[in-house]
């Protein structure tokens, strides 16, 4: 691998029936990412189960319960590398009762692969997966029209699916949608170009993943630095060192930049940007660094360093698209801990504006329950201000989670509108 190779995270939602596991197995197998002992193990299992040949889908088998039931329940992460990029796959289940797992996998993804069975076209599940991808603002969507072998590799069938998809996706907020006709079973257009679909002029899936432009996926405009912890070595060599440790959430910071500390509003200038290796002239997302300032200011975890000419909004009333993640439903007017970057406050759900029917994408203003897997627009009030951006502008400073203090469980994830 070359030194400037990037990391691309993508998510695949779907079930065994869509050919998701076969597709992942095919990607790994044809890119030579499967080891011999792993292949041996799935050959043995294929034989034991009486399958013809090697069932590539078995490669994504997970925990004992999942193997017994033949389904994916939890997000499983898989890795492969090509000479061009390193890839992390968040392999998530496709069923409606696992919406929360899909949302989890989608939260860090650069790209989403949405599988459509060429025989069935766009179905409710397709719409649901696409909606989640757009809700979580996954920058790139690749619609793989699979099982082309079962529709005689017909261009007409492919175009029909594209038309169906574009009809409903115009309502979604996605900037980059691509379509690829594939047969995961036979390997057409997954890693290798299809011999049978000469009419398709585009790139196969792997080439698409290897070459899509992802450097602009992170916001490079709004400089945001949530402070994780303060470094005070108090050693001989660094007696007065006071560094603010964190990871640049977005934008670029340079030595000498005029900065404001939120929420206190104090201003200073960046003195140094430090790492173990050396001191830097600039730091950009998603770098982990330690920042020192020209002035002695009281700064602690939860504060945010921003450029003075571009500040986030400190607010206590926020509107979020909330996905409920827990078995216990939301309690009306109950208090939760809210986590936003490194900042933690208390919060109350004041109002449920509407709930989305994720099968039809209709809004229901009368349904005021928040149960597991529900996605709703809600109003939240916090005890102290959060320094927010909208999720559309900034995935890091636009996201929150809610924690139930009686169980310590993470119960909801929200995207700030």
């Amino acid at each position, binding site marked *: *691998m070359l*030194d*400037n*190779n*990037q*990391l691309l995270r993508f998510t695949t939602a779907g079930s065994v029936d869509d050919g998701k596991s076969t597709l992942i197995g095919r990607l790994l197998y044809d890119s030579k990412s499967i*080891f*011999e*002992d*792993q292949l041996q193990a799935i050959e043995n299992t294929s034989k034991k189960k009486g399958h013809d040949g090697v069932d590539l889908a078995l490669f994504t*088998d*997970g*925990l*004992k*319960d999942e193997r017994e039931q033949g389904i994916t*329940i*939890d997000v*499983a*992460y*898989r*890795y492969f*590398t090509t000479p061009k*990029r*390193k890839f992390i796959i968040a392999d998530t289940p496709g069923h409606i009762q696992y919406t*929360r*797992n899909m949302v*989890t996998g989608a939260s*860090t993804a650069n790209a989403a692969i949405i599988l459509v069975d060429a025989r069935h076209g766009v179905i409710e599940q397709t719409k649901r997966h696409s909606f989640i991808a757009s809700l979580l603002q996954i920058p790139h969507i690749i619609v793989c029209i699979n099982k082309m072998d079962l529709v005689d590799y017909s261009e007409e069938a492919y175009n029909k699916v594209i038309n169906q998809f574009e009809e409903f996706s115009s309502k979604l907020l996605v900037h980059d949608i691509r379509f690829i006709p594939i047969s995961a079973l036979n390997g057409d257009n997954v890693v290798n170009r299809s011999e049978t679909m000469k009419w398709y002029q585009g790139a196969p899936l792997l080439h698409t993943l290897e070459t899509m432009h*992802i450097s602009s996926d992170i916001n490079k405009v709004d400089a945001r630095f949530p402070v994780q*912890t303060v*470094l*005070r*070595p108090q*050693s001989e*060599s*660094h007696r007065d*060192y006071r*560094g603010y*440790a964190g*990871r640049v959430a977005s934008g*670029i910071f340079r030595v000498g930049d005029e900065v404001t500390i939120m929420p206190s509003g104090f201003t200073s200038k960046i003195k140094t940007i*430090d*790492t*173990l290796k050396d001191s830097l002239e600039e730091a*950009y997302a*998603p*770098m*982990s660094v*330690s920042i020192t300032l020209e002035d002695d200011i009281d700064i602690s*975890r939860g504060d945010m360093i921003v450029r003075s000419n571009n500040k986030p909004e400190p607010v206590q009333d926020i509107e979020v698209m909330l996905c409920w993640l827990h078995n216990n439903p939301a309690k009306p007017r109950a208090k939760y801990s809210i986590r936003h970057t490194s900042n933690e406050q208390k919060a109350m759900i004041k109002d449920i504006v509407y709930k989305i029917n994720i099968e039809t994408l209709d809004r229901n203003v009368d349904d005021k329950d928040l149960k597991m897997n529900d996605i709703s627009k809600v109003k939240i009030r916090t005890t102290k201000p959060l320094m927010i951006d909208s999720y559309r502008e900034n995935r*890091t400073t636009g*996201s*929150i*989670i809610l*924690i139930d*203090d009686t169980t*310590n*469980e*993470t119960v909801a*994830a929200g995207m700030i509108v």
Partner: protein
Amino acid sequence: MSKYYLNYLDELESEAIYILREVWAQFDNPVILFSGGKDSILVTHLAKKAFYPAKIPFPLMHVDTGHNFPETIQFRDDIIKDLGVELIVGSVQESIDEGRVAEEKGKNATRNALQITTLLDAIEYNKIDCAIGGGRRDEEKARAKERFFSHRDDFGQWDPKNQRPELWNIFNGKHFEGEHFRAFPISNWTEMDVWNYIKRENIAIPSLYFAHEREVVWRQDSWIPNSEFLVLEDNEEIVTKKIRFRTLGDITITGGIESDADTLEKIADEVSGMRQTERGNRSDDKRSESAMEDRKRQGYF
């Protein structure tokens, strides 16, 4: 204009540093689980970066099975001295002597499973609320489901079906008295990433990883090193081979591979051409299809 994106190793490094700082901010009494293997050495190196110019602000903890490679112990003591941090040792021998666990019997007996009790005892005794480990999701299918922040109940057990969802980079380490967390900062690294990074950063690792002459015996498809604990079967014989170890565990169960790779460059080259997974040489994982999942549920690393 310079590029404003990170390459994959820098991104993995930045992610790991972020997680280590998150652990320090969210827990009162974390430790790094240090085995002397490359993954825990890597985590320690990343912790050094995360808190520079301060020292690593928490101890390293070694679960000592008593079945060590002598080189590993030497390496451990050197690194502790170099970092100036505290070392906590949990001793499996002590657990056996106190009757907390019983030694396995028979030819394939190991102290691998016994470590679980010693680890959990040490966590309880030292009031540790987060044990940072070098586990990676690419190692094994049960590990593929691990969270960065992984909850353990007050019996130290993992419940893979009821894990907390982890979204974006927001980690929830809240816990009740008696419970603890495991944190895995290098979850997203593969074996190849680890070697490429060790090579790039020129990180010191035990000599066992480099090709060297050693007395070994062929057992379960790999070269098991000769040691005071080795019980020879009738059909086995000790030979001297040029080998190196791809992973390091107990001397009784860690199989070596024949190799001439005696530099980090050569190791990285060799690993990139490997057709077997690294845990393929670990007899602890060969016991059953869910060997790792079962141990992890009980509190294993």
